[in-house]
């Protein structure tokens, strides 16, 4: 509960050199905050709408807010659907944020059925039974099984969403949060990872999560 400065996360040992991380730009949302947070933890974010860049990438972040259907269509038009499937199959680390996490699943039911990237089993549906909707604010994420993204048993992260993943494989469900029903908050299946919350907006806890993702990228590259 005691607040600490997000700047505190930079007091750790500095990275030997900035690690290039590709941030996919599909024309939605606030990329500046993802960029700024990655820079803060010692990465060199490369924001791009060019799917060919993935071929040489060692770490990729898929951000996004807004409509699943629009985002998937844009990714498809830009060539990212095939490029992301190839990238994920190569075993290199991929992290989806909020809508970016939802896109990792098989399908969504937002404004009619829509396919997703299909890198994780499960589908994306509107949240039901929540006290209010959208689910907006800081909620406690509890770790359900060992994974790489969460550093503590429980931590607060910032959520803002109306849809969530359902029928997620239990083995992939690393963290959950409660808002009426239990909501998948962190999913991991090997190199394919996602957070329903916004680490780039979750203060120190979020910066630490990015640091752990960078650790995975370093180990893989």
């Amino acid at each position, binding site marked *: *509960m*005691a*607040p*600490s*400065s*997000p*700047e505190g996360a930079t007091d750790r040992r500095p990275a030997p050199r900035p690690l290039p991380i590709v941030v996919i730009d599909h024309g*939605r*949302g*606030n*990329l*500046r*905050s993802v960029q*700024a*947070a990655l820079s*803060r933890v010692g990465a060199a974010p490369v924001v791009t709408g060019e799917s060919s860049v993935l071929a040489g990438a060692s770490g990729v972040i898929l951000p996004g*807010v*807004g*409509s699943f259907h*629009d985002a998937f269509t844009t990714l498809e038009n830009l060539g990212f659907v095939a490029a992301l499937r190839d990238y994920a199959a190569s075993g290199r680390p991929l992290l989806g944020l909020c*809508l970016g996490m939802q896109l990792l699943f098989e399908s969504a039911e937002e404004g009619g059925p829509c396919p997703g990237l299909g890198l994780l089993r499960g589908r994306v549906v509107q949240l039901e039974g929540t*006290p*209010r*909707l*959208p*689910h*907006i*604010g*800081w*909620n*406690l994420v509890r770790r359900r099984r060992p994974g790489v993204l969460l550093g503590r048993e429980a931590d*607060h992260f*910032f959520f*803002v*969403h*109306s849809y969530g993943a359902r029928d997620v494989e239990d083995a992939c469900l690393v963290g959950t949060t*409660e*808002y009426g029903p239990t909501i998948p908050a962190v999913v991991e299946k090997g190199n394919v990872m996602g957070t329903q919350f*916004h680490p*780039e*907006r*979750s*203060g*120190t806890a*979020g*910066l630490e999560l990015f640091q752990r993702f960078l650790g995975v990228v370093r180990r893989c590259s």
Partner: protein
Amino acid sequence: MLCKRIIPCLDLKDGRVVKGTRFEGLRDAGDPAEQAAFYSAEGADEIVCLDIAASREGRGPVLRAIERIAERVFIPLTAGGGISSAEDVRATLLAGADRVSLNTQAVLNPGLIEATAERFGVQCVVVAIDFRAGAGLGGWRVFTHGGTVPTELSLVDWAQRAVRLGAGELLLTSMDRDGTVDGYDLEATRAVAEAVPVPIIASGGAGTREHIAAVLAEGRADAALAASIFHYRKLRISDLKAYLGERGMPVR
């Protein structure tokens, strides 16, 4: 459990933070990026940044201040003031805001709420409503243009309509209480909270930690926004959160 949010509000004019009383008599209250960094370190859950002169003077959003805040602060940032088109929304988000707050322009052109929600998602749309208590119109009348122009809209009716159009959250400001430190308008806040499904940010009148506890409990608000008491350091956010936590409220 979802935490109750404490939100310092930076009212901007000419690139500086200002604060007045009942929307008048503005005083300087510092540099926006400095203030935002201070509040983030204090445990603020979000920053709201409003260009309060924009609709009156016809200027666009204050993107530069938003950029400077977004580079330093890693908590959510909602920005508003003078946003009148989807292009303004896009520019504000690109500058580093997570969500936009629509006020006057939403009343003048409700289609803007719909267009923003459709393109960027309802979670991106905060509709801010300035209101004043009075006879008729269900008890509270909506004002626009920084509180200078009365409308024929009732608070609860407009709130419900804004949500139907795509508002993902409502920011309610009592003009009668703004800057007075006399306490929030609990009745109005609760009336709206009970009439709509989306989260409510209460604003206007915070003077003590008890006021904030009251609007989050009796007022049924999900978040409490304040300016004066934080800007002039009458109340520290860290102390406020400890107080709310002792009263059993979920806080970060």
